[in-house]
């Protein structure tokens, strides 16, 4: 099992609260809301402050109704659907997120493309899953705090993503509907046990969207940190392999 970086060891957590992040975060905001970028656009910094953008493909998986579409919308700052309309195919959503690396102080824009596919559509059409898996960098396994079966099914789901071909794929678990504590069906202890067994980060989401950054920052930072960590691991492995062949 891949090593998970310690939270906040690679990137500055809560950087969106620091003053020096302002010039970067204002590029992803418009009138105090997250800006929607088409495929022909991206956040642009002035030439003297130009930063690199790193691209990632993230697949969101979980039972119908757990909140995949809602999570993608939340992370990108779009309107969150309040009634459940099944997603009948693949929809991708792009979230740009500025990150400051702890060691070098270097700033990067993470371009996180979230791939959301309705669970029933996946079952009806065979070609959708391979398309979601093509060149994927991370998987978010979703369960809902109000639906026990979605939690119990996690192990099954994760096992499907444990072969050598997908060993480099970053894996995170997200519990949705954490705001509906009155209907909570998954105890805190179960989550802790699960985390101990699988050694995967478990994040929680739900509730009103407040200022557009604060409520999504922990999840986006965690995702970015894990992706960056995986890139570093892959790069150093490749370096070692190359050194071996040269020798």
């Amino acid at each position, binding site marked *: 099992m891949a090593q998970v970086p310690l939270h906040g060891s690679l990137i500055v957590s809560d950087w969106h609260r620091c003053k020096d992040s302002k010039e970067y975060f204002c590029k992803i905001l418009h009138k105090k809301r997250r800006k929607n970028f*088409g495929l*022909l656009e991206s956040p642009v910094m002035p030439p003297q402050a130009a930063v690199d953008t790193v691209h990632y493909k993230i697949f969101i998986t979980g039972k119908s109704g757990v909140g995949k579409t809602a999570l993608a*919308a939340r992370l990108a700052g779009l309107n969150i659907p309040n009634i459940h*309309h099944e997603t*009948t195919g693949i929809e*991708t959503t792009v979230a740009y997120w500025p990150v400051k690396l702890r060691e070098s102080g270097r700033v990067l824009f993470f371009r996180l493309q979230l791939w959301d596919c309705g669970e029933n*559509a996946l079952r009806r*059409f065979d070609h959708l899953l391979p*398309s979601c898996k093509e060149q994927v960098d991370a998987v978010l396994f979703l369960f809902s705090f109000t639906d026990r079966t979605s939690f119990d099914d996690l192990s099954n789901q994760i096992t499907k993503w444990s072969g050598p071909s997908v060993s480099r794929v970053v894996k995170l678990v997200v519990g949705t509907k954490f705001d509906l504590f009155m209907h909570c069906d998954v105890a805190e202890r179960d989550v802790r046990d699960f985390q101990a067994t699988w050694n995967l980060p478990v994040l929680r989401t739900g509730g009103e969207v407040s200022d557009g950054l604060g409520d999504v920052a922990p999840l986006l930072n965690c995702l970015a940190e894990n992706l960056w960590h995986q890139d570093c691991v892959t790069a150093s492995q490749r370096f070692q392999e190359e050194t071996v062949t040269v020798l």
Partner: protein
Amino acid sequence: MMLQDGSTQLLCLTASSGVPLFSRGTSKQLPFSVIGSLNGVHMFGGGQGTVLSCCETEGGGKVIWRVFQDSVMLIAVSGGGQGGPGSSKEEVVRLQRLLENVWNCMVLVLGQDELANVRNVERLKRDLRSCFSLIDQLLEDRQEGILGSLTHCADCLLPPNPTLVQQAVDGFAQAADSEFGCLIVHGRIAAATEKWWRLAPQEVVLLSALIRFLSASGSTSCDYPVFLPHGSPTVAHRLLRFQLLPGADVCVLCGPTPSLHKAETGLVCRFWSPVVETLRECLTVGERCLPGSVSLRPDVMALLLINRETRRSVSCVKTSTHHPPGDPPLPSKSRCWELLKLFYMFSMSRYFAQEETLCVSQEERTQRGTTEDFVLGFSHQPQQCYLVTEECKSYGLQTPQHQLFLLIVPSVPTFALRTVATQTLSDIVSVTGF
């Protein structure tokens, strides 16, 4: 009637046994007993060798039935009443179109096989849930300025620089191994490949509705399996959609390749980056739908222009209209859209012939019989009609190529309406070639 005024409820049952499959529309559902009776009375008619297709209640409510593929029955119930949208004939036209559109939606998402051969009712019920987003959109019919579900003509936007966007659409579609491509700006078709226009008019309208829905969510790209209700009801194609700029989406209908990932990373920027400024110009055309080079007369408040041959339409409501001080205020923008729709239905249900190229249902044709009887009562086909109300004056004009519906400020003398209409038509056609 048990429904609120002006609201519509949609019921779907299995045709053979009357098992309810779903109901959509108003929050206050019809009681089960009423649904049962609605089904029962239709079945009774069937037993007597008649097809019950439409009835009207004392309070002005309406019920329309229609069975599709001998398998699924759709019933539309509208509340009628004082605030109801227009008189009885117009409402019937609207509801018939609605049922046809809903059926097409169901085929688009699920394919005809699953709907025509119901093996497992519970499973069908579950699968039908995936159609609700589109069906709800049809029922709400909220987006102002989109008239396609009513006219069965594609809502279009005429870009200021049509050649450039046309080339980009053609090139992009070809590179994506597709003959079907289109560019949608503000929910309206700005350019499309020739083959896209050869799809059935209802398919073009339905795909536009789907794309608008997907685009409104703000997502970046999509890969949606779709069945074409007329062209390919049993084999799904892939609808790929890419948001180029917020408000501008390009779509292609594909087979198994290319994958969404490949098309997005390999083709989108290659074909569309060079024309990004042209796209921005298209976006500024906005709801007006007509390029700035077309100047409309100041007394025109709103217009709907249909090209009868190509089944395309452009429509707009002007925000600033010439208006002498002291006159009563002109109707609001949203009221203008409503009046335009009503006048369209008024003209079509009374005077103008509908296009026979449409795949019209048997029922709709029977219903239309009464209109045709009325029309046949004249020695000529009406080519123009007008209506004067307190809010505005309306004028409809028909030529072999076009149909034009205009709302005009009330201060224009009635005898001058025809001149306003013919001039508006020639102004638009001469500049845009629409």
